[in-house]
Each structure stands twice: as structure tokens, then as C-alpha cells.
């Protein structure tokens, strides 16, 4: 027994020295190698008298475990120290900039179109489109605006031929005509797109965006029109309540016609939509004129419904606090970056239209 204890004491004190990994491995071999001190002791177990054998073996195993654990601990300690030293050396200034990245943006008008589509999608409208170049018939005549009608003066039209037969559409309303000529009622569509008028100043751009709405069925009346627009405006501005006013107006292609104002006020230099006692005109609408329905071979004694036209750029300006219409189309990188939307920001009903 004392011999085993001696080995133990001797090696424990040895291991207390500041050893490197090789020295520890040497000790390990010395003890547990093929002919190591402890290994050899195990070989002698058979020759120990039976009465002592059990205790001898137990003591030997205890010492073996103790030494092995200590060695493992020492090795681990050294390795840890080594890693720590390495980590110390590897330290970087983590405040240095990350690898360069670029971030793209979606134009506020595109974002607004997606928002609008998302809202109307919820109440069953689908999206239709039409060409930017239109014929005079679809843009005016079919919309109950014959050539001799003074209402044509309200549209400063870009023409592509001297006979004024081909033009850049002045509104999205010709999509109504195309849709109704192509399909059979009922119709429930919106048509966002580019529109053009030869008008250019601080508040007018020669190109702008409109969204047309059309809902024709057997029983659609002005109450539905009011309900639809009320819903849209509330959803679009993401407000609980909206102050809205329908004013009689005149468009050749709708009758009765209305212009719609929303209430607003300026608070701390910011426009607050839906409250206040000032009015802002945001759209024109009305019941589709029977003459228009006749022009597209829809029987006005069976079908009726409403149409509306909304200026998209104007809505985007109001919602996102953009002051200058011209800047939309100026393509200034700084502006696009400032007012643009992250491409992952897809407006949807369940995630909300905006963040």
C-alpha cells in the first residue's frame, strides 16, 4: 500500500510543477505506458495474497483514477490557456465597417399601387391594364365625350398624329371601355397606370398615375360607390375614421358624378388625414353613364354601376409626406433612397400595408 501511496504522492507533487504538454505526456507514459508504474502494478494483482488482494486492487484503482483525472485536468488547462492566448492575438476592432452591401428600393408610386391593389383585392376587384397609347375613340368618344364637347378642353392631350386620332391616354378610363368590350358583365376591376396631359408646372407633371375603378352589376347604386370609397380611403390611410364629403360634379362618362374630398388639418407642419375642417379633393367618381354602357354593348336597363378615378401620385404624397410632385420623376438617387421602400416590404392585408 505504501508503495502505491508513494507513487501517488510523488507524481502529484510532480504534476504541481509548471509543466508543458510534452512533460505531462511523459508523466502519463511513465505511469500508464505499457511498462508504466501503475500499469505494472496492475500486473502484480494476481500475485497479491488473496486476503489483501481486494484492498490492493481498490487502492490501486483509486490512485489510477486520481492521477488520470489530474493529468486530464492539466492537459485541458494547458490547451485552454493556449486557445486563450490565441484569441487574445486574434482580437479585431469589431467597430470596423462590415463588408459593403447595397440596398435597393421600390419607388413610392409602385408601393402605393401595390397598397391600392391589396385593398381592392380584399373586396373582390381584379386588376386590368390598357395601353398608354390610345385611340381617340376609347379615350373620349366611347366615354361620352364627343369631339364637340367642351369637357375635352379639360384634358390637355398629347397627340401622336395630326388628325388627333391617336394620343397618349389622358386618364385610365379607356381601360373601362376595353374591359367591357372584351368581357361580359358583371365587371369589378381596378386599372392602375400611367396617364398623360400636356401640363407642366409645380403641381402638374406631363405624366402621372391614376387608378380607375369600375363595378358594374345589376344592382350597384351610389350607396355602394360611397361604401367602396369610404372603405378604400380608410384602409389606405390606415385610420379608424375618415371624414369624407361627396360633392356633385360633372364628368361626361358618369352621371350622377361626384368629386370626393377628405377632411384634413395641419398639425405641427404635418398633414393629418381624416380630421380637421379643411377639405382636400382626392378623386372623381360617379355612376357609369348609360351612353357609355350602350357604347360597349352593355344593356343599361339591366346593368348599372359606378366608376372612379384616383390620382395615385397625390395619394402617395399625402400618405408619405412628399411635397413635390415633380420629384417623383426626377430620379434623384438621394430622393429615391429616402422615399423608396424596401423590396421585402410587400403590402399585404395580414402584415399591414405599411410599417
Amino acid at each position: 500500500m505504501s508503495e502505491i501511496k508513494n507513487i501517488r504522492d510523488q507524481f502529484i507533487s510532480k504534476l504541481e510543477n509548471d509543466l508543458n504538454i510534452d512533460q505531462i505526456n511523459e508523466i502519463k507514459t511513465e505511469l500508464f505506458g505499457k511498462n508504466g508504474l501503475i500499469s505494472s502494478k496492475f500486473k502484480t494483482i494476481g500475485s497479491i495474497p488473496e486476503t489483501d488482494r481486494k484492498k490492493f486492487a481498490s487502492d490501486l484503482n483509486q490512485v489510477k483514477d486520481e492521477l488520470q483525472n489530474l493529468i486530464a485536468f492539466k492537459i485541458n488547462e494547458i490547451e485552454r490557456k493556449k486557445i486563450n492566448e490565441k484569441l487574445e492575438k486574434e482580437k479585431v476592432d469589431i467597430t470596423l465597417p462590415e463588408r459593403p452591401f447595397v440596398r435597393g428600393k421600390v419607388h413610392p408610386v409602385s408601393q402605393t399601387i401595390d397598397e391600392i391593389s391589396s385593398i381592392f383585392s380584399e373586396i373582390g376587384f381584379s386588376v386590368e391594364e390598357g395601353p398608354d397609347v390610345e385611340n381617340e375613340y376609347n379615350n373620349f368618344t366611347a366615354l361620352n365625350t364627343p369631339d364637340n364637347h367642351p369637357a375635352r378642353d379639360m384634358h390637355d392631350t398629347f397627340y401622336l398624329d395630326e388628325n388627333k386620332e391617336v394620343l397618349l391616354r389622358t386618364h385610365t378610363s379607356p381601360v373601362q371601355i376595353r374591359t367591357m368590350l372584351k368581357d361580359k358583365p358583371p365587371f369589378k376591376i381596378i386599372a392602375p397606370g400611367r396617364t398623360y396631359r400636356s401640363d407642366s408646372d409645380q403641381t402638374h407633371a406631363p405624366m402621372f398615375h391614376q387608378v380607375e375603378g369600375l363595378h358594374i352589376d345589376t344592382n350597384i347604386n351610389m350607396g355602394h360607390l360611397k361604401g367602396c370609397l369610404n372603405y378604400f380611403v380608410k384602409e389606405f390611410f390606415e385610420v379608424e375614421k375618415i371624414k369624407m364629403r361627396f360633392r356633385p360634379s360633372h364628368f361626361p362618362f358618369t352621371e350622377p358624378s361626384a368629386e370626393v374630398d377628405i377632411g384634413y388639418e395641419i398639425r405641427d407642419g404635418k398633414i393629418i388625414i381624416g380630421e380637421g375642417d379643411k377639405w382636400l379633393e382626392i378623386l372623381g367618381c360617379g355612376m357609369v353613364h348609360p351612353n357609355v354602357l350602350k357604347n360597349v354593348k352593355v344593356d343599361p336597363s339591366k346593368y348599372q354601376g359606378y366608376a372612379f378615378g384616383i390620382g395615385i401620385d397625390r395619394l402617395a404624397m399625402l400618405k408619405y409626406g412628399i411635397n413635390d410632385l415633380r420629384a417623383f420623376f426626377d430620379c434623384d438617387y438621394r430622393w429615391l433612397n429616402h422615399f423608396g421602400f424596401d423590396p421585402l416590404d410587400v403590402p399585404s392585408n395580414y402584415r399591414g400595408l405599411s410599417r
Partner: protein
Amino acid sequence: MKITYDWLKDHLKISAKEDKLLEKLTDIGLEVESIENLSEGLDLFKVAKIIKTEKHPNADRLKVCDVDVGNNEIKKVVCGATNAREGLLTVYAPPGAIIPKNNTKLVVAKIRDVTSYGMLCSESELNLSDESDGITELSSFKYAKNIGKSYFSKLSSNLIDLSITPNRPDCLGVRGIARDLSAAGFGNLKPEKDKKIKSNKNQTLKIKITKEKNQGCLSFGSCLISNVKNTESPQWLKDKLISIGQKPISAIVDITNYIMIDINRPLHAYDADKIEKGIIVRNSKSGEEFTALDNKNYKLDDGMCVISDSKGVLGLGGIIGGTRSGTELDTKNILLESAYFDPRSIRKTAKKLNIDTDAKFRFERGIDQLSIEDGLNKAAFLIKEICGGEISKIDIQKIESHKNKVIKFELKTFEKITGFKISTKEMIIILEKLGFKLKKEKKFFKLSVPSWRPDIVQEIDIVEELVRISGYEKIKIENPIKERSKNTLNPTQKLFHFLQRAVASKGYLEAITWSFTDVKYNDHFKEANKEIKIVNPISSELGVLRNSIFSNLVMHISKNLDRGIKDLSIFEIGPIFYGSQPGEQNTVICGLSAGKKSRLSWIEKERNTDVFDIKRDVIQTLVEAGYDSEKFYLDDESPNYYHPGKSGRIFLNKGKDKVAAYFGEIHPNIIKTLDIKTESLVGFEIFLDNLKLPKKPLKDQKTKYIVSDFQKSERDFAFIVDKKVNVQDLVSLISSIDKNLISNIKVFDVYKGDNIPENKKSIAISVTIQSLEKTLTDNDLEKINNSIIETVENKTGAKIRS
């Protein structure tokens, strides 16, 4: 249309406040554009007397006047008027006053070293007349006791500017507006005072409307007023016109203007003595000329409606009169015209000659045919009252009589359209107050439309009248039902929105630019396309429809570079045009990237943005959109605005498709010509209309999920091939060797130079070989290895590098 509440009260019995009026006007569709207080600040203008004048020490033409402005105050005013003289009563404007003519605010000013406190005003500066020669001279008889008092009598009424929609000519007269208001329960319309000319004198000037095709004048009423003395208008008339911002001219002109504004009845006064042998209303002949009251000479086409005499054209009926027969202050005998012209004829002529007058504006919207006599009566009486003279009988020539329209209105139509009910009684009240003659049947009305409402022709127009007057606020809100029976977007639209965001997610900022462009830029990018000119562009820089989005994007990227932004990527998704007919357009997504990658980065080496950057953006976008990159086919045929050696085109399927996209460096010549200051400019165009939509939706396209867990091996090969051999062909050749075993091919090096013969290059490829069925043996691998080398060597003339 400008009105005042006071003027409205000539026709309307009402005591409500003005803000109630404004609200009501808007509620019934007569939108209030603005209100303006014309008399605001006018009280500053004082009657004053010049006490002394001296020559200005430093200017020959100026005088320094001592002016008595009342309250024992004397002001020094520098004045240039020749008529400024001692003792003259005139109008003085102190510093702070705003001159009506030009809206400038007066300040104390030094004029050639003499300080002037205010100004003495001419009539023109006060918007009282066109008289700008000298300062206003006030009669001492009337004004001597008024020195220091306000010159303008106070206007109690604000100027209300209404935006009258083109369907409502009747509301271009104050009475029409009053009638609408009364129908809406805002006051009562006063009955008209019927003044009929009683004369035994005949209208002796012969009037004839020729009967010809497209005669634009349907009736012509007139009367002669002889021995008048044209004069200044009386104060009440002047005040009336001034109150709506008009300038009084002379009694006769003022009276015709007054009648026009009051009841929307345009009149024209001729100097009867200047008319040669009666009036002929006829179509013009090409080449005829006349000088109009705007002092312009007009050359006429065939078929314009003219008022003429034996000497030629006197004026364009309903549009503008001529100088030859115009009235002046010394006019003695007047022929007063009150006619009806066809709106289409008016519009056509005015558009052709580009004339816009008040009369034209009214006639083209439609004048009450039955107001001819009324207008003559009212005007003639006023002329006689103010200018004296003798009135003749009224003469009316017509080639067509007015017929009242009759409309059958089903009572239930109202609720069908508006969704709410009003009582039959209310309908009757509204319609009768608007001037309809009504015959009530059981379920419908027979309505005779008043002659002043050309806009009302069918049943729906009656609904509009009723709902407009009873109030839009009565329309009940029907909440929409959240139900969808059709997809919101069709597959093409979904693709559009997907691509838009896919490209943006690659670091591009989305721009929206005009669909038109500068021909100078367009020329660089139009290739063989037709130039599509806009006939009436807003400027020559926006003169053509764009054949490519590049023209605008290049222009804008250049502007941004000039702003000092060095590295930027922008894109636009929108139409380009290849013809001027509807539908001759394509939707394109077009991107441009300029400058460097990793500029001034501490960690990465900076480099120019290159063709393979843009290629990645295009390919990744297409792959994200759901197209299989393994089927893509590329070649180097690209439009001439790309660098011929560093550009290409992409097909989604070899030989089966139109071009899906172009990409490449922009041609250096264009960069140079347009002076674009950047290290590198690369771009792409994806043609949405050429991207075939998959037959099956993406969700049904995914085939069975099969992966192999058997061991895979990677083998590297380096081939020396002819320079012309492209990697695409090499890769597709190798993959075709065994589609089951070769699962991936990667090009990891391309080398030209030392140790490689000229006209050759070395391509290093790593091929992944893996079976779905078993672990491949060395033998299997060796076999495929040899097959790859053999095939490549045989098919391309390559040599394996050893």
C-alpha cells in the same frame, strides 16, 4: 364664374349668412374655388389735393408734389404725370397700399434722392379704366369735401369664384345660380320684371340668315337704338362690374356685359351707321379676312359662321366682333344683336382660329334659345335709360325654332340609382323650382325641360338633378362585401410585380421616368425602331416616345454622377414603344449600374462594376422568378448600344423563344458622346412580354424530391481549347455525357497566356459525379472520367492538360 352675394340677392330673396351660401353652393355642385375680398385694403386709397408742385431737382420729367391727404397732413410725393398740378383733386395711395393693377405694395422710396411718401394713382393703376395717361382727375364739384376720405365706396360683398362644370351654361349667369339655390331651399327666386319694348318704330336694318348647309346661326334677334349718347356708366353699374373684378369701359359695353353676366345672354352692339345695307349671316368663304376687336387679323376658312354686310365680314357670330362696326363713345345709332349659335359650329371655328372669348365660352356650352327677346328688352331699356335714344321694335329672324325636350321619368329610377328614397312631393318641388314643366302620371313624370338646360336629355339627367339638389349626404353607405371570385392579378401581372421587387433586392433603386424622351438620347438606343414623335410635346427635349428605357436612365444616371454619387444602380419597369398604334408597346425592366464595387473599402479590393455583375443580376432575377437556369441559352448578339465584346443575350430555352434579356457594358462611344463621368457603366433589359409563362403554376412544377446519399466524387479537368470555344458549349457537352451521373459542373479557372499557345485558352472544370443507385466504384469513375476527356477532345478539338 365670378359672383357676389349682393348680386345674387338681385334674384334671390334670402337673409342667410355668406358662409351658409358658400356651403350650399358646393353642396349642389357649384364648387367654390376661392373667395376674395376685393375691397380689402382699398380703404387706404384717399381723395387728396395737390397743394404745390415743384420740379424735381434731379429729373426733368418728375415733379415733387405737396399733397393734402386730409387731417391736416401734407405728404411729399414724387410724381411723373404731366397733369399733376396745383389744386388738382386726385387719388393718393400711402405706403403699405397695394396697387390693384399689378398687386405691388408701396413702400417709402427715394426717387433720385428725393423721398416719396406714397403715390398719386392713374385710373388704370386703380383698375378703373384703361386710362394710364396721367393721374386720376376728380371733379372738385363732387370731391372737394371728401379730402382725406376713402376714395372707394365700401364693397360689402366678397368676390366668390365658382368653378362651373361645362354642362351647366345656365350657371354662367347669376340668375341661373340663384335658381339652383332656390331649388335647394336656399332662398326664393324673385320673379322677373317683365319689361317689353313697346315701340312703333320698325327695325329698318335688314337681317338675313342664309339657308345653307351647316349654318351656325339658328336665330338672330335685333333692335335699333337711335340717337344714343354713349357715356360713362352710372355708379351702380360700375360698382356692379368692379365688384366681380371687371373694369367698366363705357355704358353700352358695360350694359351688354352686365346682361351677359346677369342672365347669361351674350349680346353684341354694332355701330349701325357702319353697317352697309343690312346684315347677312352666312358661311364664310375661304380666304375672307377681317380685323377683330382683339386687334388681330383673322383669315377665315370655308364654312365659318360670319356676320357680314355688303362690304364683307363684320364679325364671327358668337365669338368676336370686328373693329369695322364696333361701337365707340361717339356712336349714335346702335344695332343690338341677340342671337343663337350652334355650339358645335362655335367650337369648331374658335378652335381652328384659336380664339377664346367670353361669348365663345358661353355659346359653345349652349345659350338659352328663348332668352333672345328678354336680353334685347333688358339691354335696350338700360341703354335708353342711361344713354337716351329711341328703341325700335324687335326683329327676329330664325331658320329653326326651339323645341322643348320632353323626358319620361320613371319614379323608381331614382332609388335604383341612388339607393335612397325621396318623396314624390319633394321631387316635384325640386324639378319645378329648377324650371321643369311637369305632368304627373301614376308611376312617372312627363317633364318638359327648360330651354336653358341643354345638358338635360335623358332620364339619368333627371336623377342627377334630384340627387344633387336633395343632397349627396343623403346617400347611404353600403359597406363592401369581402368576397373574391377572381384572382386579383393574372400570371403576367404577378410576374411584373415579382420582377420589380427581385431587381430592387439586388441593390437597384427603382426610378419612374417619362414615357417620352429626348430624341438626342433616344437616337442612341432606338436601333432600327421607328421614331414616334409627339405632335405637341411640352418641350423638344420630351419630343418622342421612348424606344428604350435606357435613354432616360442614362440621362438620369449621368445627372446623379454629376451630383457626386459615384456608385449607383437604378432600374425602371415600364413601357417602351415600337409603333404609334395602341398596343405597339412592350413592358421592359431595364437597369443600369455605374461605378465601382467596394470603393474605398478597408476590407475588400475595389474593382469596376462589370458585365458579370450585371449578368448575375439578370440570371438571379430570372431564376428567382422561377425559370430554370439549366435551360438558359446565351449568345453574344446584342444591340449596338452595348459593348460588342462584353454583352450578350439570354434565351430561356434554346431555339424556342424570343430574347428574354440583353445585358452588357454600354458602348464606350455612347459614354463618351453623352459625357457620362464614370469608371464603368453596365446595363440590362429584361423583356417581360417575351418571358413565356410556364404552363403549370410554380406550385405544380416541382417534381419529386429525390436526393442521393451515395458517395459523390469530384474530378477536375483542364482542357486547352480553341479561343472560340465557349464555356456554355463545353459545359452542356459534358453534362450530356451522362445526365444520371454528372450532377454538377463548375468552371473554376479560365487562363490565357504563358504556356498556352496563342489562339488557345485553358479552361479548368470541376465535375461532380454521383449516382442515385449505388456507390460508384473506382472502375465506374474511371470510365466516366475517360468518357469526359474523350468526348471533349473529339467534339471540340481540345486537349487535356497533363
